[in-house]
């Protein structure tokens, strides 16, 4: 059984149909990278998975439990899915340590001292254990994103959804975030990543999904997608994006 299964997801904003039947399956420990031009619904799709944006139609299962079921405990399910935002969204009134520990305390009901220890462990993992007292506004974008990854990790999620995690960063800060993500992927974390970073995709993706106009155009392993894509649009997009962003890593 796959860890995450999305089936025929539809979402419409007013007249515009952003998602027109997207289906995906993700195995435990797998890293899947979703690429595609902007405005094709990649981010909306991620939000449909954890129901931040409930889809109009279609179903999602996490580890066999239906997330789209009207009677499911969505808060509990969300706690099992980390979400890393493009613009970090760290809690601006909390310092680094509290940003990471608050979910443990409030959602998981873990005692403060224990939560603190767990948070420290995750901050070490992203290399920011020397910044525990800093507030988000005192950190660089790259550091903020690493804190937000630690915040997601602390909850011990079954998978983490990344919504263009490096798109808001200055070029020289992208590397440190990708480095953390690559390490995670290699450690066996299940990840669904929307990104334009082809270097990252090449390095760790088990599968690449190309989306355009609200549908999955093509999906396959990186070698196949980069060297011999079946669909002409996939090749075009990959060439353009590699030219545009280059390959960090």
């Amino acid at each position, binding site marked *: 059984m796959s860890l995450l299964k999305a089936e025929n997801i539809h979402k419409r904003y007013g007249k515009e149909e952003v998602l027109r039947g997207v289906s995906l399956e993700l195995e435990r420990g797998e890293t899947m990278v979703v690429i595609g031009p902007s405005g094709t619904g990649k981010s909306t799709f991620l939000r449909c998975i*954890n129901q*931040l944006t409930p889809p109009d139609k279609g179903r999602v299962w996490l580890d066999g439990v239906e997330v789209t079921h009207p009677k499911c405990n969505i*808060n*509990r*399910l*969300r*706690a*099992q*899915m*980390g*979400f890393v*935002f493009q*613009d970090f*969204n*760290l*809690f*601006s*009134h909390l310092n680094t340590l509290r940003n990471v520990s*608050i*979910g443990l305390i*409030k*959602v998981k009901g873990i005692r403060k001292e224990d939560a603190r220890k767990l948070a420290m462990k995750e901050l070490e993992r992203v290399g920011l254990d020397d910044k525990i007292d*800093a*507030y*988000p*506004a*005192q950190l660089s974008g790259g550091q903020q994103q690493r804190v*937000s990854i630690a*915040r*997601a990790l602390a*909850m011990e999620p079954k998978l983490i959804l990344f919504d263009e995690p490096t798109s808001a960063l200055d070029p020289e800060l992208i590397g440190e975030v990708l480095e953390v993500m690559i390490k995670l992927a290699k450690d066996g974390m299940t990840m669904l990543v929307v990104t334009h970073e082809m270097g990252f995709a090449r390095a760790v993706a088990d599968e690449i999904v190309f989306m355009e106009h609200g549908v999955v155009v093509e999906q396959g392993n990186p070698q196949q997608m980069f060297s011999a894509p079946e669909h002409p649009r996939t090749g075009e997009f990959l060439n353009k994006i590699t030219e545009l962003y280059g390959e960090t890593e």
Partner: protein
Amino acid sequence: MLLRATLINIELLFALLLLGLLLGTVVALLQVYGGRFAGTLAAGYAWVFRSIPALVLLFLFYFGPSEFGVNIPPFIAATLALGIRSSAYQSQIFRGAIQAIPQGQMMAARSMGMSRLQAIITIIIPQALRLSLAGWSNEFSSVVKDTTLAYVVGLNEVLRHARIIMDRHYELAMLAYLAVAVIFFVLTYSGNRSLGWLEGRLRIPGLEMKGGTQNK
């Protein structure tokens, strides 16, 4: 005598601010998160109680219940009338503050599994109250002086005492009213100083512009 009566104003001030703070927060939250029905109701509340003159509210709250045979002590009536009025103003300060918080804060909280209420309590309110402080000190300055209005319902507060002094010794009237003016200047000034200090204390490092607080 005037100073002792001032204590009543201070008591009334704290009571009405507290009532206004609690009710105002609830009204603001309902207006932002309450959905259409509760939201409209909250907005209506804010409109109504900002539209009625304070004196009229005082009369309504004091004489209204006695029409039905219920006698409310002046202090309670004044607290209710001025507190509810203040809650209407405070609710709009908080609403502005809540709406100034980026939506991503709520999304991030929800995405880690917090319920809406949990997110509001642990993430939104602490940030909104900080943002409210500047506007709130304005409301504070205004209600400090409103406490003197309570003399129309017979509360033994400072202005009533000044009036009594005038009635007994007309030659002291100017002096009495000047004393009241000084008392309120000191109250407003020290209150604003404390709020400015609080604002500085609670400032989130790195986030807010320096020099933004008053009395700096």
